[in-house]
């Protein structure tokens, strides 16, 4: 298969304009003749569904929660980037484009990223018009802040709830269209299969989570906006229902999966406190501006932090990186925390945490100053852990929180299956090997509000569509397969719960395919995952039946896919014999422990084609061509 990204010709700055002109248009009167399925109601899904309905298409929108407003985009805290240059500090579309390409360690497409930077400004305009209450200055104009190490203030925010406010904006646009009858909403549905007829995506099969019924829906195009797969690790900052099913089922139907090993790990999260922890909570990275990271020098030191004298503490980041100290980049901070804990120096109940100490900052600046800066974060920490960071050092540990990999899409956001479009975190397109802070919201909304509504028209206008109804054989087959899987899961009646197995899978991925990877470990992981998958199908215990709301069965279906997908992540990591961004293979690093890229051999996208369970997928490569930026070693010195 030759991967054609369909990047338009011409200068970078004119590609999108030119493409929009070249795209075929659907006659306004004809739009209502097209049915489009959108799966997911996060920033990408809700914005796409609403915007396509505004244009006149008939949209069916599916979500897993009880209402579209709960999609996990809602949890994003920090903000959304846009090259508005309101701060007059030298920002521009080109700078946002360059920062994103460089931040992604040169593993993303120039054309896509430039378009993203271009559209960023329109997103802010539109969201303000929708009533999103962004932070403002006393003059009434929008406020921005610098975020995630960016040198310009380009991040728009709404307190620590930017994701929530943007999602509610998209949700309200969606609700408007539901009210008008242009979008039909299907909550509490989980996509279990993609239906492909004559090589084109023509519908989906979903499980109604309340009744357990399998339902078929036909359409002229299918849009997946189903988020990332961070929950493969069991513990992540993702919501509990985030999963890979929809994307993975599309992969099984022929859509290629790109760069599955690219997962981002955030250094400052509240650590795991016990075996039964279900979820990790992110704390703003800004804490590292004043907090000092340390562990006891002596492995296994179980004294309280305040009882450990200064001489017996190891401020390892300050020791190893004298110039950057506690402010080293995310991935370096994360990897070092893991290293210390691996040496047995980790603190807390589980030994999987390091201290982030504000005692010096409080002595230096006074408690008031620290409280003004971090008061709300300290409160949140206290609520969860019951400890006061003013009195005892905070405990932090890295956690999985975003996946850059996803289904491969071209410039039109169409996957390798015709008529299957993929948006937001579910696709792979814009962040390369590492995403910059406050860019996920930007990408989801750019895809949904401003890209897909154009490109899907280009597809629909130029494609003949024989009639396909939900009684087509392909749907019946999809339903039969799904039913078989459900029955199979319920029939095992083993002794282990779904969560136990998921937790074990998570640990394997975390240990071997997490912050740092090596060939031996990855090979071990491959064996372990396969073994665990066999165990799952022999010994899992799924109670209840299939004709009811059965949350164990839902989770079992998701874990079944993670058990196959985890293998794909490992295979991809094994294949990429370089380090880049968040993919850190210990064999490939600079003297400063920075990721060492191999641009000669790996300046491409890995896109995997499904062949069969227990069979190695076929690799396709999309070379990445850089005409406008120079590939440099990522260095933050």
């Amino acid at each position, binding site marked *: 298969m030759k991967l054609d990204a369909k990047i338009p010709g011409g200068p970078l700055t004119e590609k999108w304009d030119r493409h929009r002109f070249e795209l075929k248009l659907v006659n306004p009167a004809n739009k209502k003749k097209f049915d489009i399925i959108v799966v997911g109601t996060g920033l990408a899904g809700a914005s796409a569904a609403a915007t396509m309905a505004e244009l006149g298409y008939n949209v069916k929108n599916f979500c897993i*929660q009880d209402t579209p407003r709960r999609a996990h985009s809602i949890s994003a805290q920090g903000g959304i980037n846009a090259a508005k240059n309101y701060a007059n500090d030298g920002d521009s579309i080109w700078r946002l484009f360059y920062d994103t390409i460089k931040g992604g360690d040169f593993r993303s497409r120039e054309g896509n990223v430039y378009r993203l930077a271009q559209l960023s400004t329109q997103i802010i305009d539109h969201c303000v018009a929708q*009533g999103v209450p962004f932070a*403002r200055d006393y003059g009434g104009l929008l406020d921005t802040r610098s975020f995630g190490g960016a040198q310009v203030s380009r991040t728009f925010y709404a307190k620590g709830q930017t994701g929530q406010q943007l999602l509610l904006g998209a949700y309200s646009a969606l609700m408007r269209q539901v009210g008008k009858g242009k979008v039909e909403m299907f909550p509490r549905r989980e996509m279990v299969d993609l239906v492909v007829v004559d090589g084109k995506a023509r519908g989906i099969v979903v499980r109604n989570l309340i009744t357990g019924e399998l339902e078929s829906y036909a359409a002229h195009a299918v849009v997946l906006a189903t988020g990332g797969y961070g929950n493969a690790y069991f513990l992540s900052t993702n919501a509990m229902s985030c999963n890979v099913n929809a994307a993975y089922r599309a992969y099984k139907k022929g859509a290629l999966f790109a760069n599955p090993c690219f997962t981002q790990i955030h250094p400052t999260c509240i650590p795991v406190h016990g075996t039964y922890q*279900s979820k990790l909570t992110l704390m703003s990275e800004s804490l590292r501006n004043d907090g000092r990271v340390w562990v006891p020098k002596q492995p296994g030191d179980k004294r309280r932090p305040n009882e450990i004298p200064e001489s017996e503490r190891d401020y390892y980041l300050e020791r190893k990186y004298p110039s950057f100290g506690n402010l080293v980049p995310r991935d370096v901070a994360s990897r070092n925390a893991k290293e210390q804990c691996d040496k047995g120096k980790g603190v807390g109940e589980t030994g999987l945490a390091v201290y982030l100490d504000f005692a010096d900052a409080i002595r230096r600046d006074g408690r008031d100053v620290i409280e003004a800066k971090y008061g709300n974060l300290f409160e949140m920490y206290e609520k969860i852990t019951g400890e006061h960071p003013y009195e005892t050092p905070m405990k932090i540990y890295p956690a999985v929180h975003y996946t850059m990999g996803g289904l491969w899409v071209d410039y039109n956001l169409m996957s390798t299956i015709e008529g299957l479009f993929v948006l937001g975190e579910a696709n792979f397109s814009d962040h390369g090997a590492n995403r910059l802070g406050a860019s996920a919201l930007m990408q989801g909304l750019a895809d949904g*509000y401003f890209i897909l509504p154009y490109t899907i028209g280009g597809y629909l206008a130029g494609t003949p569509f024989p009639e396909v109804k939900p009684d087509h054989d392909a749907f019946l087959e999809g339903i039969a397969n799904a039913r078989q899987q459900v029955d199979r899961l319920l029939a095992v009646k083993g002794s282990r719960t779904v969560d136990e197995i998921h937790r074990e899978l998570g640990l394997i991925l975390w240990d071997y395919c997490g912050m740092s990877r090596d060939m031996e470990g990855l090979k071990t992981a491959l064996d372990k995952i396969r073994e665990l998958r066999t165990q799952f199908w022999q010994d899992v215990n799924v*109670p209840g039946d299939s004709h009811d709301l059965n949350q164990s069965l839902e989770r079992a279906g998701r874990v079944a896919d993670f058990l196959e997908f985890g293998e794909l992540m490992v295979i991809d990591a094994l294949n990429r014999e370089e380090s880049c961004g968040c993919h850190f293979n210990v064999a490939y690093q600079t003297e400063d422990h920075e990721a060492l890229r191999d641009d000669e051999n790996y300046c491409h996208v890995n896109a995997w084609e499904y062949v069969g369970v227990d069979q190695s997928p076929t690799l396709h490569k999309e070379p990445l061509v850089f005409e406008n930026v120079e590939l440099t070693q990522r260095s933050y010195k």
Partner: protein
Amino acid sequence: MSAPTINLTLKVWRQGRTDKKGRFETYPANNISTDMSFLEMLDVVNEELTKKGIEPIAFDHDCREGICGMCGAVINGRAHGKERETTLCQLHMRHFKDGETIVIEPWRARAFKLVKDLVVDRSALDQIIQAGGYISVNAGGPQDANSIPVPREKADLAFNAAACIGCGACVAACPNSSAMLFIGAKVSHLALLPQGRPEAARRVRAMVRKMDELGFGNCSNEAECEVECPKGISIREIARLNRELMKAELKSA
């Protein structure tokens, strides 16, 4: 350093999807780490139930960081438990005493049909938003974001109202199962912003009518909603809603 553990007795409302009548079942919850959240405690109980061959308790939850609004149950007579400005997922077990009996009930309201155990159908809240909880603007051609200044005080007030997570605790806590705080928050959020003014009258009328139609109760100024709201939304939003409705009706043709 290890967190202390406590033993609890749970009285949980169990009701199948097709059951007309539910009942309370009693389960032990032993060796519960006080570091756990309430939902993690339920996870542990569910794992044990599963191993005993009893169907686990169905409950709604998703983000587990207090923002998605999916979780919620009445704990010992209090929506989301007795801690202030807290969702169930952020309620930690250190607030409970060893040996305590905890009664767990689903949200109760005519407008929220019970689905199963602790899971209820809150789609009525979506329907209220569909009736008018938006600004009618299509993606595509708005003016520059800074072309309409919004005084910071107004923007902050709008944000406070917009912080609603749609969990339904206000309805559950209201002695009358009224949704006034929910719609008050949305009407206020949009009415406070210049962008929302053009259709403010139409919006408030449509949303109030829809709310009434869906079988929620009437507000009787009991203020229980504001105490239980996990985002601390004030009943001032309800007063503003009342003003907006009066204004809308008095000015209407």
